[in-house]
């Protein structure tokens, strides 16, 4: 049994200064150009992404030689949690900043780093995640999209699904089968960087139950990818994907998706003089949030130390998404307001948005059951 490590970490003066900088940026930026602020990291606003890039808040932890900020993971944590808490629509650059860039830094070639990282940092290059397929959701190792070796590169055929913002993004790191299936299900996969403007790519939007069109199905019909766009080693895609998950699963976006509702609920209850009956519930959720922050900060600090806390990241994501899903369930009972999708704003609208978006929280980035399976393996049960 491997002990889970969540050694707490204290942030200091440097982080406090940065936090204030983000707050004044947000204050000066004014209202966001969006109709709702729940789950703001799945909402895309390239203009905001470029404004953040101009502040140096994309690729913050990356080496300065690639245009990165050379700053710590704790500093990045502070910036992203401020943006999320404010409901900033940071979806355009989110994947590139969170995982594609770090993946290239870990496994990419020097040419790939020099080509892509400065563009990501400037907010000029957005990445999509190319993992799931129509018949491969949780069972990622069952993907069918193939990349066939041809002269000078690879030819991709197949399809990917649930790819957020594929119609806005420029590149997609695509997990493909590059060798026939064998007894080792995790062997024979590779990651290729696909330019989404390429010939042979069709993007079909899929509308969510909340009425949003952020994700898509993508079809590949003999799409050519040159040799220099292979990430890392041929047929080693699986272990690279696993490494990516420590970045993907542990951040504050895994518990702040419905945070706006908590803040609005407290304000509303205070104004309506309904505080007394609500105190234990508000206190309970605030406590969960405070502990999740401590856990997520701890993981950020471990990433800083060069560790890959994949199991800890799974813990943060499972506890975090439970929190952000249960929050609207609890708030609706103390608010005594009927959710209303057509409301311009206020708790009625926030309730509606968070209830309608909540099912996805524990699906994207690994379902609850998959995460618990990973944790059980860490306990030595599998």
């Amino acid at each position, binding site marked *: 049994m491997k002990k889970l490590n*969540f050694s707490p970490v204290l*942030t200091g003066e440097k982080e406090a200064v940065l936090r204030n900088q983000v707050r004044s940026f947000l204050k000066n930026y004014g209202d966001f150009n969006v109709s709702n602020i729940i789950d703001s990291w799945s909402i895309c606003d390239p203009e905001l992404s470029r404004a953040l890039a101009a502040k140096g808040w994309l690729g913050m932890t990356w080496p300065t030689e690639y245009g990165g900020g050379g700053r710590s993971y704790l500093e990045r944590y502070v910036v992203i949690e401020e943006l999320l808490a404010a409901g900033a629509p940071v979806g355009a650059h989110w994947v590139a900043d969170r995982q594609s860039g770090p993946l290239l830094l870990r496994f990419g070639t020097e040419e790939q780093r020099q080509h892509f990282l400065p563009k990501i940092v400037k907010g000029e290059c957005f990445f999509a995640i190319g993992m799931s397929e129509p018949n491969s959701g949780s069972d990622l190792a069952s993907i069918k999209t193939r990349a066939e070796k041809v002269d000078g590169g690879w030819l991709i055929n197949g399809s990917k699904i649930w790819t957020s913002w594929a119609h806005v993004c420029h590149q997609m790191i695509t997990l493909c089968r590059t060798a026939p299936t064998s007894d080792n299900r995790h062997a024979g996969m590779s990651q290729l960087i696909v330019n989404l403007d390429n010939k042979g790519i069709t993007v079909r939007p899929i509308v969510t139950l909340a009425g949003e069109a952020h994700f898509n199905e993508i079809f590949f019909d003999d799409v050519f990818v040159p040799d220099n766009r292979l990430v890392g080693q041929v047929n080693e895609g699986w272990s690279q994907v696993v490494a990516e998950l420590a970045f993907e699963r542990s951040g504050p976006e895994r518990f702040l998706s419905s945070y706006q509702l908590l803040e609005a609920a407290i304000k509303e209850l205070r104004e309506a003089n309904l505080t007394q009956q609500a105190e234990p519930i508000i206190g309970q959720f605030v*406590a969960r949030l405070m502990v999740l922050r401590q856990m997520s900060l701890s993981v950020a600090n471990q990433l800083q130390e060069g560790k890959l806390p994949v199991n800890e990241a799974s813990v943060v994501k499972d506890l975090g998404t439970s929190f952000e899903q249960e929050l609207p369930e609890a708030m609706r009972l103390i608010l005594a307001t009927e959710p209303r999708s057509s409301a311009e704003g206020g708790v009625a609208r926030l309730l509606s948005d968070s209830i309608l978006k909540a099912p996805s929280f524990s699906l994207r980035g690994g379902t609850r059951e998959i995460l*618990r399976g990973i944790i059980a393996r860490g306990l030595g049960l599998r």
Partner: protein
Amino acid sequence: MNELAQLIEESATRLFEDFSNGNGHELMEAGQFPDTLWADFLADGWLTTLLSEDDGGAGLGLAGGCVLMRLAGYHKVPLPVVESLIAVYLAAKSGAECTDELIIPVVITDPINDQSDINLYGVPWARHAASLLVVFTRNNATRVSIISSQDITIKSAQNMAGEPRDDVTINVSQLDNFSELQGITIEQIESWLALSRAAQMAGALQKVLEMTVDYANERSQFGRQIGKFQAVQQQMAVLAEMTSASICAVDAAIDHLNTEQEWELIACAKITTGESAGYACKTAHAVHAAIGFTQEHPLQLSTRRLWSWRDEYGNEAKWSAQLGQRCFELKTDNLWNWLTTQTGE
């Protein structure tokens, strides 16, 4: 904090392991004091280790003390480790001389009526104590009276773990002889006691998790280890999640002692351990099944403690209500500003 914790862990583990192997639990549950274990605890010099070196201690402070308490919880030590350490810590702060005699801390939160006796419910280990260290407020000052147990009425009672939790009556005149605790509020002392229990609970939760993982890997049914069943794995994963959240919450509270956010993170620690205790006990007993429901199996030594401790020094409902009240009392609308000053910035 980490190096200190490791040092404490190394030196206390062997002692505490010995404790849980002997007959201390039977003695305690039969209403007797485990004298020899207590003598060993004193002989190793732990009682005063929280105090500064000037006061004759090892300078561990409350932070180091909580590490020791977590270990005591893990090893289910049948001694008043938590209570005696806090009492000596407070006694030193009030300027009182301490001996090796057992002192137990009690906080009076209800308003004190000058005419009547004061009834204190469930005072830990009172019947075995030489004296009680009674903390109360008068004229906006925090006061401490050390009262000999010979001068008080004690009615024996036990919590679910068989630990002494006695009902005590003191006379209000016994508070006339007091010293003041400068710069410390009664809310702070209440929170320190809550943190101490939370630290014990974090240790007990870790123990319950380990025992349950071991059992799930040993026990076979339907031709394979029960830990191989997904239904069991999913429950155990949640048990591990809640345990690590509890440990993180306690560690974070320890790290934030003497910061502006001390009280809030202690509240979080008691809430998190309290919420986790119920799930942990339920799951551990489900996995252990009938054998875990017996006295001969050691699981109950940890689970009965968790069921008791979660309600002592304020359960999760009480602490949540207090924390919620603070959220509503914020001068500014902005919850986020308040939450993010929690990090010691």
